[in-house]
């Protein structure tokens, strides 16, 4: 694909042996990986279109080691890319040829569970689902549930501010984290937040969460845990038009109802899912909604009735309410299998992640069809309907010449469309390298400069995860003096990539 990363620094590459030796002095044994064969598993994350083996991988086990690694790299001007489980869909953990890949997989312990304060203190390499596993016997769970939750790490969730299908009601990672221990690029170890709700000063935790590994390396996380709801029930509703489904969502929220989850699928996605898992999805509809409620049964029953009425008023052609847990899971089975199901329609698919104001949905889907025709590619849509987060799945065949480039261009067009209608480039997958070059579609040079200046406050040498999120490299000292006039790009001599 057309991604351009910062030019590897020849002097750093020439010092590779010295760098490896320095890392081995900090992390003994198998914690430093330097042979080409063993580096290969680290060459990409969940966005596999981009691959680059790192110069070296280091897998520390203690905060002191992380601090020593970063301090050494800082003093020696060596770039560092942090990595959790490597499930990012935006290339946030894509290695650099002249960079150290700092893996947190050995930080895999749950340190403390405190039911009185309803928090768990975990190391960043603990998987999202493992947090729930650790507290479920006591009737608790960790609310954010990204679809990769079996594999993705809490540290990665913090970096990406991960969401999931339940985040309209329960929030993203940022709403479920109270504190962290973070190591800055110069090796300084800080505690931010704690177990109390408000910070003593600036809400630095708020910017660390979602910073895509550019501000610091998180080595411990305090998350909130919630009592598991008594029960859950779901509705499966078919509509003969996307407008009807969209209006049903709007009317539900206008009626004061915030469901635990509200998912929409368009016709191609419904057909692909039904063909794959055969759970009885209606095939004669244009849009399918899954609306889930959780809480006391009295509440779930009440809301199922209320939303059934709203659905019928909006022309629903089929309405089914789950009668038991088995049926509820069956309703979800097709949605949860949407990605593998779609992968049977074409050899490859590319998952996008924009958010739009919900009221623009019919128009956006229409224009997306036109774009699909223009790029001569198929597209299926799954959609977190409650919060307007679209996941178009672009179908292509990487073996056919030009298709991968067209898929990428189609994806970019979709994201430009999202911004044009008042939405954003990414609702939950992050910018990473994938949407990096589209940032100017959403932000002016001044907006981006202000974000870069925040980066400089944490990492003045720009050594931590460079080449991600921002379309242009700047030296911090120059940024401070830069003034943007009428959108003109200052410092045209600086590298753009």
């Amino acid at each position, binding site marked *: 694909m057309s991604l351009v990363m910062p030019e590897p620094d020849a002097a750093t590459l020439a010092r590779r042996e010295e760098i490896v030796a320095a890392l081995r002095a900090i992390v003994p044994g198998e914690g430093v990986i330097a042979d080409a064969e063993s580096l290969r598993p680290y060459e990409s994350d969940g966005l596999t279109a981009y691959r680059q083996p790192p110069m070296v991988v280091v897998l520390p086990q203690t905060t002191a080691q992380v601090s020593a690694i970063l301090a050494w790299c800082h003093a020696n001007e060596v770039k560092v890319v942090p990595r959790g489980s490597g499930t990012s869909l935006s290339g946030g953990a894509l290695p650099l040829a002249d960079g150290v890949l700092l893996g947190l997989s050995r930080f895999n312990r749950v340190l403390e569970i405190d039911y009185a304060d309803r928090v768990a203190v975990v190391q960043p390499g603990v998987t999202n689902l493992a947090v729930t596993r650790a507290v479920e016997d006591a009737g608790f769970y960790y609310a954010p549930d990204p679809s990769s939750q079996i594999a993705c790490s809490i540290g990665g969730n913090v970096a990406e501010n991960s969401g999931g299908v339940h985040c309209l009601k329960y929030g993203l990672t940022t709403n479920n984290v109270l504190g962290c221990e973070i190591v800055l690029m110069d090796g300084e170890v800080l505690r931010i937040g704690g177990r109390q709700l*408000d910070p003593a000063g600036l809400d*630095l935790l708020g910017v660390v969460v979602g910073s895509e590994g550019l501000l610091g390396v998180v080595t411990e996380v305090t998350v909130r845990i919630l009592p598991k709801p008594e029960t859950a029930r779901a509705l499966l509703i078919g509509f003969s038009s996307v407008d009807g489904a969209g209006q049903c969502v709007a009317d539900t929220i206008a009626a004061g*109802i915030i469901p635990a989850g509200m998912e929409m699928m368009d016709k191609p996605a419904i057909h692909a899912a039904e063909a794959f898992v055969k759970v009885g999805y209606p095939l004669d509809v244009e849009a399918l909604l899954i609306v889930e409620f959780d809480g006391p049964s009295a509440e779930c029953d009440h809301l199922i009735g209320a939303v059934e009425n709203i659905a019928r008023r909006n022309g629903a052609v089929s309405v089914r309410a789950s009668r038991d847990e088995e049926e509820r899971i069956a309703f979800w089975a097709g949605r949860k299998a949407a990605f593998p199901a779609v992968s049977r329609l074409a050899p490859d698919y590319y998952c996008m992640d924009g958010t739009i104001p919900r009221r623009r949905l019919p128009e956006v889907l229409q224009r997306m069809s036109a774009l699909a025709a223009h790029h001569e590619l198929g597209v299926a849509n799954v959609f977190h309907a409650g919060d307007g987060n679209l996941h178009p799945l672009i179908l292509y065949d990487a073996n056919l010449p030009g298709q991968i480039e067209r898929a990428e261009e189609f994806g970019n067009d979709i994201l430009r469309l999202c911004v044009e209608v008042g939405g954003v480039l990414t609702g939950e997958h992050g910018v990473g390298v994938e949407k990096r070059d589209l940032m100017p579609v959403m*932000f002016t040079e001044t907006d981006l400069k202000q974000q870069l200046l925040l980066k400089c406050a944490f990492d003045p040498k720009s050594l931590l995860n460079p080449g991600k999120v921002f379309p242009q490299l700047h030296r911090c000292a120059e940024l401070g003096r830069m003034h943007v006039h009428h959108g003109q790009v200052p410092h045209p001599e600086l590298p753009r990539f």
Partner: protein
Amino acid sequence: MITSETDIVDAIADAQRAGEKLAICGAGSKAAVGREVAARTLSLAGLAGVVDYDPPELVLTVRPGTPLAEIAALVAAERQMLAFEPFDHAAMLGCAGAATIGGVVAAGAAGSRRVSAGGARDHMLGFRAVTGRGEAFVAGAKVVKNVTGYDLPKLAAGSWGRLFALTELTLKVMPRPETSGTWLVAGLDTARAVAAMAAAMGSQSDVACAAHRPAVGASPALTALRLEGFEPSVKARGAALEHLLAPFGGAFRADEATGHTYWADLHTLAPLGHERELWRINVAPSRGAAVTAALEACGADWLMDWAGGLIWAAVHRHGAEVRAAAAAAQGHATLLRADAATRAAVPAFHPTAPALARLEERVRRAFDPDGLFETGRF
């Protein structure tokens, strides 16, 4: 009077030329917090009005000087609310001026529902602002789900006007509960009350708010739990809560007026009087009882909210002891109200660890390189 973004840019340029500091404020409902300072005032109270409100999208965009009361009425008419329960601090601080939305967010102000629904930070989706360089910029967005770029809206909440001057805020709104009920438990000592609140918060009763006030004279200690939602749900959860709290002496549903007064007292802090210094202490809920014990040793009166995690305390002098009690509980104490001499001597904010303070300083300089907004108030 400031009525536009251009006015702010001009005011910043003027202050820079004159070598003066700028104190950003709203209508002054929290003016009593922090040291008295000599600085030009940059009031955003005139930059008011609703820019966009689309109830089914759950998004509200307003200018910072819009009165909080006006916004509350606007969203209430659509059966919605600001879920973090912001309230006007003027009464408790003895200030004139009605709270503005910009001031509420800049102070990170939140009410009792903070414990379940999140704070101002959790409902700030995006903003437009002018930096200390006099440059206007935007961050975040006008949709409820967004991870594009750094989450600067979080940083804006609780920044107390030290980073930039907000010119537009986009907030997440939520449906207003159809009904709510307050359940009371009488006569618990503080440690038992904290345990009861922890049990309730950890239960499936989906408790919205949990607060405790100690016995005063003949009035017994009262622990309160608020349930909100649809009537059948509140009823079912209330029954479960009564069962759960039986070992604590039993919970009963308060009549509406009693419930209303209980929660309103946590906004006005009327039970604490207005004579003494007022402190706001943030700790992990389970450490709340240790803090109140230390406060009582100094003769303080107090109220507890957020299941034990927030303590309002009125005490004369003893500032060092208050901060020590908060620090011993790994929390922090903010001095909200005191006479000018005390405010001159005791910083409003709890001192942070030196390394963290240095990082905060660098972050502030990222937005305000010359310290134009550093008036010395904090």
